[in-house]
Each structure stands twice: as structure tokens, then as C-alpha cells.
């Protein structure tokens, strides 16, 4: 198959998905008698520079979340627990930084380390259960999500402090804050300084997965466990390593906001980031660039939808339907394309085989 054709086939799947999602969303809106035109006018309007900054901020956070999920996916591990790992980790990081045990930047760096360790530890429970007791990580991480919610609420009550209506950890000393980046000239709101973490993590993900032995083993185990075992991969160790790594990256999700904006972990923390990350990873096919695109699309949709209620009188919740349909139709489209590709390859091989005996007989004569 030619390169161009292969590339075209790779790109057509997400295109189908976006069209399908747009179609379904429009049909749902039509069904309940809302104005489809107004919906798209609001969602597809050019965002103001303030909203653009918000989109970049949200996308960077979703990207980290998507990476965390993707690390597991590459090994056929379904870490549904990114949500719980992110919460436990953000709390741990915020609490540690709030203690102000270390001066300035050192505090920031170690707190990020603490958050990563906490996320990894929370994922580690699922990893240990999986390799020692054979418990499916899908179920255990779902349970751990719920447990994380209760645990963090409890810790917040024990270790946090009351500030008005909200219970939150001690505010991080100002020396440890990370200043924002002025991305758009003249725009007062800034991009999180730690949004760069997403860039670093993305490059790290690409390098580790494609350029190291660990990454090769990980992908090999995901592609075929038996083949990986035959080539000497210790699958149990890889499972633990992949889940720990996934949890550690999940620990980063809360950092840009923590050090850039909220400066404490409070009961107002954004929930659902972990689940959206799974969706983003699926849309991006676990590819570092694909996940970035997915994160941008999702951030764009949720930020743009906020105005729906005020301008068009449509509930912004409709965007969750759009996002969900994008995920489902993307995976279906990829599957259909994969089958189509397979069939083309099969016919090509068959055709090549038909030519073969003729070539062989020529040599004989």
C-alpha cells in the first residue's frame, strides 16, 4: 500500500468520528427542539484571547491525563483509576508544599515528586492486586477511585483548614508558586507555567516508548503477551512498572493548576479529569501527537460550551454527549479502517502469490 494511501486511511477515521459526533449532537438537539444553528454558532465561534488561554490551560491538563491513561493502554492495561490517582496525588502534593519544609523552587520540585509518588502508590495497589491476586485492574481501579474520594475528603477534614465555605489545605508559600507564561501578547490572563510539564511528559512518553528497551517491552507485551514472554519479558514486572508510571504521570495532572492558580487543594477541585483523559487517549490512539489533538478538541469543546446556556439557552451538558460520541465513533472508525486495510493487504498478498509460480517456472526453464 502506498504511503499516501496509508496516511489517508489514518486520517479518515478521526474525520469520520468528528462528522458522526457533529451529526449525532445536531440530531439530539433537533429531537428536543433546540436550535442547531445557534449551538454551532456558539461552539464554533472564534474564542476570545482570554478563552484561548483557558483552552490551552485545560488542554495541557487533559494531555497529562491522556498520557497517564495511554501508558496503560499501550500495554493493554486499563487504568480507569487515573481520576483517583490524580486526586490522591494532588492532595499529597498540595499538603506537602503547604507545609513549606523547603525553600522556594526546591519546595515546588519536591512537592511535584511527592505528588508523582502518591499517584504511583495509589496505582501500585491495583498493580499489586493484579500481579499477586489476579484481580482485573479495571475493577480494582474503579473501586480505588471511589475510595480515593473518601480518603481525600477525610484527610482534608483532618489536615485542612477552613476558608469561608471551602475546606482546603494550607496555601502554598508564594516563593513556591510558578509564574504564568504570557502566550498571547496584550492578554492579561496567563498560561500555567507548569503547562510545560505536559510538553516534557509528552516528549518523555514518545522517547521512552519508541527509543528505549523498556518502551519496546511495554509495546511488545501490549501487542502479544505470549510473544513477549517468549522473548524474555517479565510480564509481571512490566505490569507493575507500567501502572506505577501511569500513576506517576496521573500525579502530574493537578500540578499546573496547583502551582499556577489555586495554590491549595480544596473541595472545589475539578472532578472528572481522569475520565476525560481516558477519552482523550482513546481519541488520540495513544499517540503523543494524537493525544495532544484530542486534548485540544476536548478543551475547546468544553470551554466554548460554557457560553451556550447564556447565549443560546442550551444546556452545556450536551457537549458531554458530543465528546462521548467522538470517542465511540473514533474507535469504531479505526476498527473499520483496520479491517479495510487488512483486506487490501490480503488481496495484495494473494495477487503477489499468483504471480509467484509464473516467476518460479521461468527460472526452471
Amino acid at each position, binding site marked *: 500500500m502506498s504511503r499516501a494511501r496509508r496516511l489517508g486511511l489514518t486520517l479518515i477515521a478521526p474525520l469520520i468520528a468528528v462528522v458522526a459526533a457533529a451529526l449525532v449532537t445536531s440530531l*439530539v438537539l433537533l429531537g*428536543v427542539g*433546540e436550535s442547531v444553528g445557534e449551538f454551532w454558532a456558539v461552539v464554533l465561534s472564534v474564542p476570545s484571547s482570554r478563552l484561548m488561554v483557558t483552552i490551552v490551560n485545560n488542554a495541557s491538563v487533559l494531555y497529562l491525563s491522556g498520557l497517564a491513561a495511554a501508558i496503560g493502554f499501550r500495554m493493554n492495561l*486499563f487504568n*480507569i483509576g487515573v481520576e483517583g490517582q490524580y486526586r490522591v496525588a494532588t492532595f499529597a502534593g498540595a499538603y506537602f508544599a503547604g507545609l513549606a519544609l523547603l525553600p522556594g523552587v526546591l519546595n515546588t520540585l519536591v512537592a511535584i515528586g511527592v505528588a508523582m509518588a502518591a499517584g504511583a502508590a495509589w496505582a501500585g495497589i491495583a498493580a499489586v*492486586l*493484579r500481579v499477586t*491476586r*489476579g*484481580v*482485573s*485492574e*479495571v*475493577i*480494582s481501579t*474503579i*473501586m*480505588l477511585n*471511589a*475510595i480515593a*474520594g*473518601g*480518603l481525600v*475528603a*477525610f484527610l482534608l*477534614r483532618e489536615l485542612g483548614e477552613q476558608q469561608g465555605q471551602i475546606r482546603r489545605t494550607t496555601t502554598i508559600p508564594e516563593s513556591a508558586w510558578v509564574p504564568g507564561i504570557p502566550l498571547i501578547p496584550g492578554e492579561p490572563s496567563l498560561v500555567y507555567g507548569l503547562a510545560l510539564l505536559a510538553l516534557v511528559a509528552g516528549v518523555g512518553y514518545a522517547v521512552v516508548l519508541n527509543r528505549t528497551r523498556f518502551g519496546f517491552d511495554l509495546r511488545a507485551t501490549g501487542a502479544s503477551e505470549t510473544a513477549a514472554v517468549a522473548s524474555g519479558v517479565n510480564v509481571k514486572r512490566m505490569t507493575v512498572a507500567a501502572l506505577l508510571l501511569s500513576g506517576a504521570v496521573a500525579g502530574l495532572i493537578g500540578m499546573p493548576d496547583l502551582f499556577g492558580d489555586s495554590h491549595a487543594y480544596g473541595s472545589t477541585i475539578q472532578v472528572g479529569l481522569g*475520565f476525560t483523559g*481516558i*477519552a482523550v487517549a*482513546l481519541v488520540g490512539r495513544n499517540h503523543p501527537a494524537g493525544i495532544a489533538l484530542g486534548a485540544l478538541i476536548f478543551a475547546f469543546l468544553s470551554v466554548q460550551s460554557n457560553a451556550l446556556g447564556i447565549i443560546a439557552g442550551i*444546556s452545556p*451538558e*450536551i*457537549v*458531554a*454527549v*458530543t*465528546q*462521548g*460520541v467522538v*470517542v*465511540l465513533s473514533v*474507535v*469504531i472508525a479505526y*476498527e*473499520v479502517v483496520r*479491517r479495510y486495510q487488512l483486506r487490501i493487504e490480503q488481496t495484495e498478498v494473494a495477487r503477489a502469490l499468483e504471480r509467484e509460480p509464473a516467476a518460479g517456472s521461468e527460472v526452471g526453464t
Partner: protein
Amino acid sequence: MSTVAGASAPGAAGPPQPVGAAPRRSSPRSMLWVWLLLGLLALASARVLSGADDIDSPGTLGAALTLAIPIALAGLGGLWSERAGVVNIGLEGMMILGTLGAGYYTFHFGVWAGLLGAMAFGAIGGLLHGTATVVFGVDHIVSGVAINIIAAGAAAFLAEVFFSGLPGGGPTQSPALPNAPSFGVPILSGAASDLATKDWFVVSDAASVVAALTTDMSAFTLLALAAFAGTYWVLWHTPFGLRLRSCGESPTAAETLGVNVYRYKMIAVTASGALAGFAGCYLAVVASSGYANGQTGGRGYIGLAAMIFGNWRPGGLLTGSLLFGYTDAARLRSGGESVHALLLVVAAGLLVFALWQLRRARAAHAVGFAVAGGVVLFWFLATDTIPSDFTQMTPFVATLLVLALFSQRLRMPAADGQRYRRGEAG
């Protein structure tokens, strides 16, 4: 998914059944009664020792049943789907659709129409999952996750469309809904309730159970129990059920015998969605007084866990659901105190388990369980109550513990979660 080895599973789990073997198993069923009796005894002892009277009052047990049924129905949905080889993590989403359908149709057309509407909404979710996984061969977990996202969004969006502006309704909740009719056994109910308050060891506790079962039994509860009996009969005693389960054990073998695997899987997943929809309806109509956003609160996942706990069998699933429903009820009724008393039961259970392990000459395991039991016992003795945050996570911790302790004895359908395509046999 994890690959649980099909090792022989003695004891509560029962020996693995070859596909279609005549279900002539006296042991699991009598074991169930033994377990129930032991549970009652443990509860009675804990009640007397800790003085937490609400631990098995008729009110708590009634609430336990009410909270167990949605979990059980969701689990039953999971059972249909997974017996046909389709992992259904979208149960949560189908349940959400069920609560919405129940809210809309019950408000406009009454209780029974509400039930049908809820089941139809759930079935739509099931159909979607079936189309993605069976027809297009998408990974089952991925499709389930997507369905959960779609369902949560659709419900939140449609709730605003359906219920905004209705009297008593709002953008996130429906107006109060009429409850399903309920029945009681007049004389027995009163007598049992009286006896339950007498505080006699075991006798009062047994009376509590009777009182809970004879007072204000919802028609939906009976229907749910009928669904269990029906499922057991259909899946294990009819040719249809045999074919359906063969699709979950070895679809290629089923295909060679002329079974239309796609059709059976689609039927199973759609039924699964309908049952999850029923679960949602029960939650909205019986367990609470109307639809509310986020009402399911992960019960679809707990149902899935209950099904795994029950080793992919209806009896075990029901037991698991009752256990989870009970921990939920204990937490809701008198929160910290009851769950605190349950610590004693857990500690005793762990210590007994340790002794059992010792008898089987597994010293390391025995020590582990003994230490765990000791820690829980110390926790019980050192505190008076459990913070509400912890009581909230009881069902989830219980699920995790059960999975960790018993996962080796579980045997899921052999081809569960695997991609199947027609004509790729051999």
C-alpha cells in the same frame, strides 16, 4: 482483562460446570444457607457485644434490601452480557439512562410505563454497546467507557429539557414520582416486628429478617427477584440459555454447531441494558423519590463487582449484592456506629480465616490474616465510631477485599471480553 485461570474451584464457588452440564449441585445451595446462617449469627453477636442495635433492625435490613436490588439488577445485566462473552462496563451508563427514562415516563404515564420506559432507555444503551463490540469488534472496555460518558452527558442534558419548569422539578432533578405498589403480610409482619425489638439473642435477629421481608415489600422488588429466577431458568435450563452461554465460553465452537453467535450476543447485551435500566428505575422510583443527576453513584460498577464476587452465577451475585446493599444501609441508617460494630464482624472473620489457613498449613497466609484481624480488632476497640468518609467507602473496600481474597477461586466465562468475528474460527 485479567486472566483468571480456570483452576478447580471447590467450596462456595462450586466446581466449574462444563457447558450445558445438568445443574445437579446440591452443595452450593446448601452452602448459601450455611453462609446466611453464619452471617446472622455474626450479626447477632456483634449487636450484643457492641450494643449497636441498628446493626440488624428491621429498618436497616429493609433498607439493605432496597439498596441491594439496584446493585443486584445491574449485576444481573452484567451476568447476561458476560455469559455471552461481552464485558459490560457500560452498565453504569445504562443504569443512568434507566433513571432518566424512569423519571420521564413515570411522571407522565405512571409507574408501569415508567418501568418499561426505563428498560427501553437502558436497552438502547445495550444496543449501542452491542453494535460497537459485536458488530464492529471494538474493545469491550473502551466501548463501555464511551457509553458511560455519553449516558452521563445525555442524562444531564435531557434532564434539563424534560424536568425544567415542571412543578417540583428542576434542571437536575425530576418532580417527586409515585412509588410502585407495595405489599405486606399483615399479621406476620406485626408479630415479627414486635419480636425484633425484644433484644433476644439470634431470635430477635431472625425476627428482624422476617419483619423486613414481610413489611412494605415493593412490587418492583418482587419483580426483580422474579427476574433472578427467570434468568437462572432461562440461562441454565433452556436450549436458548445453553447457546447463549456457549457464545461466552467458546464462540467458535458455537459457530461450528450452527449457533448465530452475533445474534445471541446482541440479544444478551440488549437484555443486559434493559436490566440495568430496570436497576435505574428501581433506584429512581423505589429507593428514592425521583430522578436526580448523578443518582447512580457508581452502583453500576458495584453491580459488576457483585457479579464477579458471585462467580458469574445468579445465586452468588444475589449474595454479593445483599452484602453490598447491607454495608450501604448500615452506613446510611446510623452511620459510624453500625459500621463500627461491623469491624468486629470483619475482625472475627479474618481471625477465623487465619485459623483455617493454619489448618491448611499455610503459615504465611495465616500470619497475614491474623495480623490484619488484629489490626481491625484494635481499630474497633480503640475507637467509638468511624468517620463518615470511611463509612461511605465501605462497599468499595469490601469489593476490593473480596476480590483480593477470593479472586483465585473465580472462573469467568472462557471467552469473556474477547473479540469474536464470524468465520475466523480455527
